């Protein structure tokens, strides 16, 4: 697409979208958001960026390939089962740890976050794979 404004703006918009997608992922457990929404947002950011520039170039510039995202996603999802496995609990039971952070209160981390990250990456990979295969012939 030959819109100069779009081309100039696209890197910023992309970064902003990726930033928001990470926020969506992290707050997902307590507020609207989550891995699926975050993943879609990131994918959208990259799709938008590729639309403004050139599909092929963007695909080449991507540091992580869609296939890798998919594999990472599955790996994260599966790794989220490990904590429950090590604690000899029912498989996939959420395991939480609480880390005190001084005046900031405390940080609660749980295996569901790993799961959500897996969904996040899986969705990015799948969506990008759809788009990059559709985007050009030959």
């Amino acid at each position: 697409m030959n819109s100069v404004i779009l081309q100039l703006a696209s890197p910023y918009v992309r970064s902003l979208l990726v930033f928001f997608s990470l926020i969506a992922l992290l707050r997902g457990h307590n507020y609207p958001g989550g891995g699926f929404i975050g993943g879609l947002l990131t994918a959208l950011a990259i799709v938008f960026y590729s639309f403004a520039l050139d599909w092929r170039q963007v695909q080449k510039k991507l540091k992580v390939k869609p296939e890798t995202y998919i594999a990472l996603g599955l790996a994260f999802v599966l790794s989220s089962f490990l904590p429950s496995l090590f604690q000899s609990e029912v498989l996939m039971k959420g395991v939480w740890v609480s880390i005190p952070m001084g005046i900031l209160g405390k940080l609660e981390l749980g295996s569901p976050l790993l799961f959500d990250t897996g969904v996040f990456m899986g969705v990015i990979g799948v969506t990008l794979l759809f788009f990059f295969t559709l985007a050009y012939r030959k």
Partner: protein
Amino acid sequence: MQYILLIYFLFALGIFILPGWLKKHVGVILALVQTLFFVYFFSKIPEATNGHGIVTVIHWIPQIGLNLEFLLNGLSLVFALLITGIGTLVFLYASAYMKSYEGTDKFYFQLFLFGGAMLGLVLSANLIQLFVFWELTSYLSFLLISFFNKKELARKAAFQSLIITAFGGLLLLTGVLLLGSIVDSYSVTDWLEGAQSIKSSEFYLPGLLLILAGAFTKSAQFPFHFWLPGAMQAPTPVSAYLHSATMVKAGVFLLALLNPVLGGTIEWTYIITLVGVTTMFLGAYFSITQTDLKAILAYTTISSLGILVLLIGIDTTLSIKAAMLFLFVHAFYKAALFMVAGFIDKKTGTRELSKLGGLYKHMPITFIISILALLSMAGLPPTLGFLGKELIYEAKIQSPGIASLVLILGVAGNTLMVAVSMYFMFKVFLGKQGDYPKQPNEKGYLYLLGPGVLTLLSLLLGLSPAVLGDVLVEPALSSIRKEFIDVELQLWHGFNDVFLLSLLTIVLGMTIFVIALYKKQFLIKWRSINNRIFIIEFTNIFNQLLDGFLNFSERNTKRLQHGYHRFYILTVIVFASALLWFEVYVTRNWVLETQFSLTPLYISGLVAIITCSTIYAAIARSRIATIISMGVTGYGISLIYLYYSAVDLAITQILVETLVVVMFVLVLQRLPLFETLSSKLTRVRDLIISLTFGSVMTVLALKALNVEFNHSISDMMVKNSFVKAHGKNVVNVILVDFRALDTLGEVTVLIIAAMGVFVLLKTKKT
């Protein structure tokens, strides 16, 4: 015991990561491993043959009664020793034989894994577990037969053997499930306890037939025998190991294992005896007219398997004793002969009888080994084979029921065996110099080690059979009969009926041999008679059946999988709306909720916009307009979600809608220009179908208003979301915690879909 199996599987995998200098000797290394196991099993003889044997139970899924059960008793010990002992010799042989071929890693992997699978089979005391190993051996046999997979014959033979044995395996599984349902267990021990209730059950006969089908296909019994000669396409070590000494005896093992449970009935005796005796005779009958060394050995193997099955079918203590002894006899001489045949093939470049002859000058040691092995095959003294044959005759004479038929066919079969053995020896080693493609020599002691050891054993044990009788045959027999039975074996039985039968056999066999040797026309005529009587070629019938089946399913598949996407969708929608309308009709006594209001007005406006854009999407004349108006519909719906405070859903809907619009635009590039190609009638039909479907969905949505929901599940989730799952967003907690398994499934589906898209679009059309 389970550790031995584990070591087998680990070693099999380890073959691939061996460093180069060790890889050269992989055959020898694996042979050493097998020797260690042989020694292990040998050292277990006193423990295993004492009482009930060694039992190991590992609880696997106790909830459904599935345990790993291993049993080492007299019977399984015999097989375990054969598998590891002959395995050792075969691997030594293979290390010489396979040197000149590519892909030996794969070969050793499969062959060694087979050893483990076979061992697992004979050590299993749970029939489901046994089935798993059973199928594993079938599958590895398939891979090993197709080792020369560039040859079409090898591929076909491998496929044939897989279909027959795996099909038999499935029948076996069905039989096991059927009979297992009677005693509610798949453990052999439980079956033994419930033997009476199994035998008196109405499922006994169908279950027995199914299990027998499994055993008969595996052990190449008539009419499933024809896969075994085909299997000779495999490299010779495979033929020696799988298709004569071990795998084909799995059926015999199963029959022996289940004999105390299922045996002792008229059905058992008659079915097995008849099948066994037919196989015994036909195998011997066909073997004499073969011209390929390995084909001769394959048919005699079929005959021997028939004898084993027959003996178990006769089901007397004497016959089982004969079967256990013959197991050794046959394994010794047949494995040796296969290895010799492979050696001759290697050194002369041919296996055709017509091109061989006079080899004794070039291969004297081979000649001596072969004489001993063939003597054993013919059942002549002083080898173990003689003893085996005498015992078999004795068992046949005493067989209840159809003794006369069994005896006549038995004498005929053995006569042919004698003739074949003599003919084999004379045509290969004696007579005038053959016309070999290669000048033979006798280099390579590894080739002769295996056959040498086996024939030596055959000779020594023939001279002092009491060792074998006391140490192995006695416990095996006792564990089948479930009582202690004293076994005394001796070479010379005295001058009695059996000895007369033996003499008769030898004289008749010699006569046939002499005629065959001096009258060249004799065997040719025999062959042509065979062709006339047995017009039915089993392989052909099998292939025709298979082709017919494939054609049939291809036609059916084409009818259903026609490849027109629009008709797939049409079918799905028509069926779905028919079923839904039916359901709506069945549950028609509900009252339509009529309290519709237009407030708040912006929601009503939104609904109006959605409706308009949907209608426009259907009638628009340009694709881009359709897509955009569909987008409008989607965004409108997400706003409605938002109004009902389903925020997560709304965000997702907006994002998906955006992506879908972009995706459609990308797809559009690939489509031809918009044109109306369908006839008016088609469009009317499509309109009716879509209206039917749309209206049923509307009715369903209206009806949903009347449904009383069960709130307990959603209440539970809302209540526990923060307390137990540390999350305030219930939707997310459900996705990643409460119903994480569902999400895992969804992610997997997405990934599979992505792979599908990737493959469909990236694959070039050829």
